[in-house]
């Protein structure tokens, strides 16, 4: 089980969290302007990163808040966590990239 660093509460066991998938996928401002390919890109296409992955988590059984985290998907080690609205950290300490 992972120990997940909530930016509000600190490290907590995985059971307190729900996963929210890839981070920084902004819903297009005006979907009616998109063609089918662009809409499919938003809805379905994912980087599925092998390496440091930016992803959403929610501390559902804790503070209840969403946040983003960087995790290395080849080791499951968390590199950083940061609040919604903050940009992805350029290069955090211990970042294996």
């Amino acid at each position, binding site marked *: *089980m*992972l120990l997940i660093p909530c930016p509000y509460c600190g490290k907590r066991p*995985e*059971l307190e*969290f*729900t*996963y929210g*998938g890839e981070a920084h996928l902004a819903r297009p401002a005006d979907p009616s302007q998109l063609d*089918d*390919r662009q*809409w*499919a*890109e938003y*809805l*379905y*296409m*994912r*980087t*599925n*990163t*092998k390496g440091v*992955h930016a*992803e959403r988590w929610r501390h559902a059984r804790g503070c209840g808040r969403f946040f983003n985290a960087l*995790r290395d*998907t*080849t*080791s*499951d080690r968390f590199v950083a966590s940061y609040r919604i609205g903050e940009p992805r950290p350029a290069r955090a300490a211990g970042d294996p990239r």
Partner: protein
Amino acid sequence: MSRQRFSGFALLRRALCGHRGWRPQWRKCEPKPAYDAVIVGGGGHGLGAAYHLAKEHGLGSVAVLEKGWIGGGNTGRNTTIIRSNYLFDESAALYDHSVKLWENLSQELNYNVMFSPRGVMMLAHTVHDVQVFKRHVHANRCNGVDNEWLSPEEAKAFCPPLNIGDDMRYPVLGAALQRRGGTARHDAVAWGYARAADALGVDIIENCEVTGIRRDAQGRVEALETTRGPIGARKVGIAAAGNTSAVLNLAGVRLPLESYPLQALVSEPVKPIFPCVVMSNTIHAYISQSDKGELVIGAGTDAYTSYTQRGALHINTHTLDAICELFPTFRRLRMMRNWGGIVDVTPDRSPIIAKTPVPGLYVNCGWGTGGFKATPGSAHVFAWTIARDEPHPINAPFTIERFRDGHLIDEAAAAAVAH
């Protein structure tokens, strides 16, 4: 090297000679400078595709590149369940094509894959389950796929260890049974295809990871960069399961895939007690007994994407809670091993077997939590797609473009594992 044919007589003859004279079942190959077609991924789907390319499509030189050892990925990590009771016409055609090939696969490959159609029973625990499964039974019958509805008492008669009492949190309200479903020996599937492909001249190259996909001026695939040097190929088929996104990223192709850990575990071996396969989507359990006597138990996917081939313990204990309630007699069994594989999941839980936007590059992926059952059929239609540069009628609906066009094949309800 000529292939040694296996038979009861050959076994007896070798036994009388102290088992001397058995030869390796396939060659250890060094990569050649170029091949007509290269398959990336030495699991059942990839090895099977290479076999069909060499056997039916007459490609002169074919290679399978495997970054580890053959059958070491999901082919060797699954719970070996075979069935075809999927809801939609497209899926029923694909999975039942596979079941029909399973039925004769040992003879086809001259290799005992231990296919055992012992029946797959899916349990219903809620009114919704009952309605969905009955809908599946009817849809399957319309497609010529056997599936029948059982009362709780009939389910218990088919699988005596099953608890159908009303002391459970989610009592068994009935079950859907596919009698032609069952299990097979997963390692033997990889080895049998490898041996048969090798005999047809296919080079199987292990410890060879693809690190780049080179394209010519027209954008067509011309070679692969690998950890064992460049290998030329005008046709490349990717069957890399959980690593498919990473491999196709080398050619700039994006896919609707996410890779999750999926875990399984086995108990200590016991005498034969479990006559079939039992699955429960609702309380999440699936279980069968191997010929060695271990109970083979499938757990769920972890919550997050990962490439680590391991997962969290609470995923396993959640499944064991359900197993203990369904089969109280197993409560004191000890679990012996657990492990994880990385499964590539599509948004509609159906696979992709198709051409990619890159000429000469083909992909077979997205099998999610249920690819083993489809191995022979998938291999057959993937080879067809690569050789003819157009899909077989069975895999024509399983394109990447269906996500753009909205023609999803939404099998989330039929997938064994709740996602």
